[in-house]
């Protein structure tokens, strides 16, 4: 398998490659000390690179083609996943997957954006860009969860809602708006986790909840750095500046009071060690569900209303 290496990952990758080569020679040559030295070095390098990530680098990590997606987490975290399809009106949107699943003994409804890994699966998943029927499927599943009193977990990972002719004909805006409206008054706990890209209304359409979490190397904002660059700088070349200006990383959003918690990623990013990532996420979700389960539905809805009501900065 050829690996996808980001520019700033390259020095780490080169060292790791060297270690692998040396290991092959280890039995014939006495070089284990050198290997140990190099391993220390790579660890140090990783630490320093990942401690000093720019916002744009985090955006790249959030989009890393080897990053775990919704279905990967379903596989690693849950048992007995029963996928449910279709909005009961028009179509089944492959850019959003959802269904009942069990995490340890906790039964939940999980819904998330789904990207593809290669050209073929990306076409099938529409690159994780939902159409209105996707949001309507998600809402149907959430109401089902409410009916049977199951907590809802949504996993956000989309470059945006799809901008197409059919999407507009079928009411992309209405579908997203309806989800915001209905999610705000669902009587079961909702935990939202940004696992990759949280692009604008396309992400928020699954993003109203009681607890909003972001994995450490993800982004969430009103627009992608590229589109922001093209509109405000009238050029695609200012994406790095746009990413800085938008303050769109997990630490940024925690500081802005928009998210509740950052879920730490393993050193090197989620794609570097998906199993550890999944374990951390699983433990976090179970912890959050346990807390939210104790809150009465009316109180939960009231808290949700105020949670979003408190977001915003203005003077009077």
């Amino acid at each position, binding site marked *: 398998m050829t690996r996808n290496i980001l520019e700033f990952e390259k020095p780490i990758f080169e060292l790791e490659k060297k270690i692998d080569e040396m290991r092959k020679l280890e039995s014939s040559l006495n070089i284990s000390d050198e290997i140990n030295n190099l391993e220390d070095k790579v660890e140090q390098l990783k630490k320093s690179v990942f401690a000093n990530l720019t916002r744009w680098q985090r955006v790249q990590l959030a989009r890393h083609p080897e990053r775990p997606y919704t279905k990967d987490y379903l596989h690693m975290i849950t048992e007995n996943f029963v996928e449910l399809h279709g909005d009961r009106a028009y179509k089944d949107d492959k850019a959003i997957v959802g269904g009942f699943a069990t995490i340890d003994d906790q039964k939940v409804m999980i819904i998330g954006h789904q990207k593809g890994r290669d050209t073929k699966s990306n076409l099938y998943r529409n690159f994780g860009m939902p159409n209105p029927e996707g949001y309507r499927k998600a809402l149907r599943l959430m109401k089902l969860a409410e009916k049977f009193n199951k907590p809802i977990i949504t996993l956000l990972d989309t470059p945006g*809602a*799809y*901008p*197409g*002719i059919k*999407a*507009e*004909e*079928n*009411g*992309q*805006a*209405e579908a*997203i*708006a*309806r989800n*915001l*409206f*209905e999610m*705000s*008054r669902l009587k079961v706990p909702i935990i939202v986790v940004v696992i990759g890209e949280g692009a*604008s*209304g396309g992400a*928020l*359409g699954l*993003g*109203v909840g009681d607890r909003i979490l972001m994995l450490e190397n993800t982004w*969430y*904002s*009103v*627009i992608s750095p590229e*589109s*922001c660059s093209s*509109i*405000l*700088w009238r050029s695609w070349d*200012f994406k790095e*500046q*746009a990413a800085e*200006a*938008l*303050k*769109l990383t997990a630490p940024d*959003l925690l500081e*802005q009071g*928009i998210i509740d918690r950052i879920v730490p990623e393993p050193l090197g990013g989620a794609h570097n060690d998906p199993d550890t990532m999944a374990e951390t996420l699983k433990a976090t979700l179970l912890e959050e569900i346990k807390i939210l389960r104790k809150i009465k539905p009316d109180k939960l809805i009231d808290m*949700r*209303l105020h949670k*979003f*009501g408190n*977001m*915003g*900065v*203005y*003077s*009077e």
Partner: protein
Amino acid sequence: MKWFKRSKNNFSTTSIKREVPDGQWIKCDTCNEIIHVKQMEANSFVCEKCGYHFRIGSKEYIDILLDKNSFKELDKKMKSGDPLEFVDTKNYKDRIRDTIKKTGLNDAVATGVGKINGRKVAFACMDFRFIGGSMGSVVGEKIARAIDKAYQQKIPMIIISQSGGARMMEGAFSLMQMAKTSARLARLADAKLPFISILTDPTTGGTTASYAMLGDINIAEPDALIGFAGPRVIKQTIGKDLPKGFQKSEFLLEHGFVDFIVKRTELKQKLDDVLSYLNQDAN
């Protein structure tokens, strides 16, 4: 010097009066008819010859729709903070300050309570002139509070949208205004109080994908651009020309997303008609 002003965008009586020396004549961009300002005002800023709806602001809508002197404005002084200390080619702070100076508005929405033919309503109207009618913290908060007013006083909520979408310079804060306003509308709906959304040219992006599409009744002005993604973005994505009339009011009516299209000159009467049904009859 031309004695009329060609005016397609951001029409407002105040700016016209300033920019045209003898001040009183406007040329319709669609049919070239030359119209006196007084005549325009009397006809709700609709061209009498071709029916073109000039873009107007909150001040004009308040005059057209609400009973004389009935409007009591709320949160008039609210201004945007600069939570991200956002800088693109210009500081957001400067952009705000300059726009306030240029438009005489503090942000892209005016909210308050007023009366429509004697019936009390909570009312919000956006202004495209203020950074493209973009929705940031101020728009979200003022609309949320207006909805609260409707909720507390048990009166209908009416919102006139005119917006390019969420305001980029406030990043995730802008995005969250969509959730904030939608959640308030859900509470209003649970209290069985009516919400009427009026969509005018243009209503796109996060504004459409939140309160503008959530009316018990959605009303569009004729020939308004209404959509989620902007036409330019869609064209870029699909690499094809867009069909004629795409994302116009008539297109939305045809696809089932607005209840009806009404001329601005008939809007007040139509609102009155609709509101007369949206209340709880005693059994």
